[in-house]
């Protein structure tokens, strides 16, 4: 059997914002020498390729999306599961139909709540090349993102060569002094230093 050209890294996941309404879904695939991002609305697919040799950085920051969903689903889940079900069970006039109805409604909120927490913390991932910085909507959970990063990191290193932490810092430090001398850079650096110094030492 012929080897597949692309291997799936993530399942298709909705793009945030308005795109959800337009049913645009994004997935990530691993090619021989590149990552392939597919945005699909079901009838057309748009491709973006990120060659391993061109990837400069991948940044991931934890977001509060999981917490929002927990509140959104948790409140009605609690109302129906902790309030509704005991109420119909203890109420002698409530029939079997009422118990089933309340249980189904509770399950409608409880199951997504459970899934939301099983997937782990949510995050936003970005990939940077020399000419663009793109969001990777399919890498929206920290656990799966780290799995994917662990898989592609050696491939990027293979394509670009390895750089030690010390070498990287040397390369970063020299030109950044010029950058930090700009008003905005200096202001941000000062704020950072102040914040760092104001932290209690533990």
């Amino acid at each position, binding site marked *: 059997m012929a080897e597949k*050209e*692309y291997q*799936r890294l993530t399942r298709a996941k909705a793009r945030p914002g308005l795109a959800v309404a337009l049913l645009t879904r994004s997935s990530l*695939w691993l090619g021989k*020498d590149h990552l*392939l991002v*597919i945005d*699909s609305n*079901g*009838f*057309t*697919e*748009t*491709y*973006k*390729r990120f060659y391993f*040799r*061109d*990837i*400069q*950085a*991948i*940044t*991931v*920051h*934890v977001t509060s999306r999981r917490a929002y969903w927990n509140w959104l689903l948790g409140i009605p889940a609690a109302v129906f599961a902790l309030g509704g079900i005991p109420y119909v069970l203890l109420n002698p006039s409530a029939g079997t139909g009422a118990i089933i109805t309340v249980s189904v409604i509770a399950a409608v909120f409880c199951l997504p709540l459970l899934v939301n927490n099983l997937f782990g913390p949510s995050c*936003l991932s*970005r990939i*940077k*090349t*020399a000419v663009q910085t793109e969001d990777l909507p399919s890498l929206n959970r*920290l656990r799966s*993102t*780290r799995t994917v*990063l662990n898989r592609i*990191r050696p491939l*990027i*290193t293979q394509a*670009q*060569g*390895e*750089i030690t*932490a010390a070498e*990287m*810092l040397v*390369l*970063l430090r020299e*030109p*950044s002094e*010029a*950058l*930090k001398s700009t008003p905005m*850079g200096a202001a*941000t*650096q000062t*704020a*950072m230093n102040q*914040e*760092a110094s104001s932290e209690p030492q533990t």
Partner: protein
Amino acid sequence: MPVLWPQCSNCRAFLSEDELNQSEPRPCPACKTPILVDFFPAYFRPPAVGQVGERLVLEDEASCFYHPEKRAAQHCAACGRFLCSLCDCELQSQHYCPNCLETGRVKGRIRNLENQRIRYDQVALSLAILPIITVYFTLATAPLVLYLVCRHWKSPLSLVHRSRWRFVVAAIIALLQIAGWGVVMYFIVQSLRSANG
């Protein structure tokens, strides 16, 4: 070319050295958001410098097809024309002239330049299934589905979903719909005949 000091992707504050290339997310010094930053050597690589092509020194030297006054450095992998350094477009170790690159992109001959595809198999399947909700539309959509299946059977599928099962299912559903309409028509004609005596 100055290298931009890495910033937090959430608040744009400059990150400290401790936050870079760590295996675990570290809090951003400014916004405290846990952040994972992986930097690769390409970040420090200066951008590639374009070349303008060398001028011809001797008259009998091969010259560029598009710039006759410049020396040929490569030949196009698609059309074979000589190209100077300015016209040479390298893609995956192959050299193309700008025209062939554009043609390859438009006609899908160079797969790695393709950035969009229509999924005709998905269109056909949706067109076969969705009109079932209002049965009457299937009279028009079923032949259309068969046309789509025949017309686009060999059209490129998705880059990653390479099976034609959607076409097959769509064609079967469309044939069933047509057969159903045939049966309905038969009974209508029969009832009209019996009514006329």
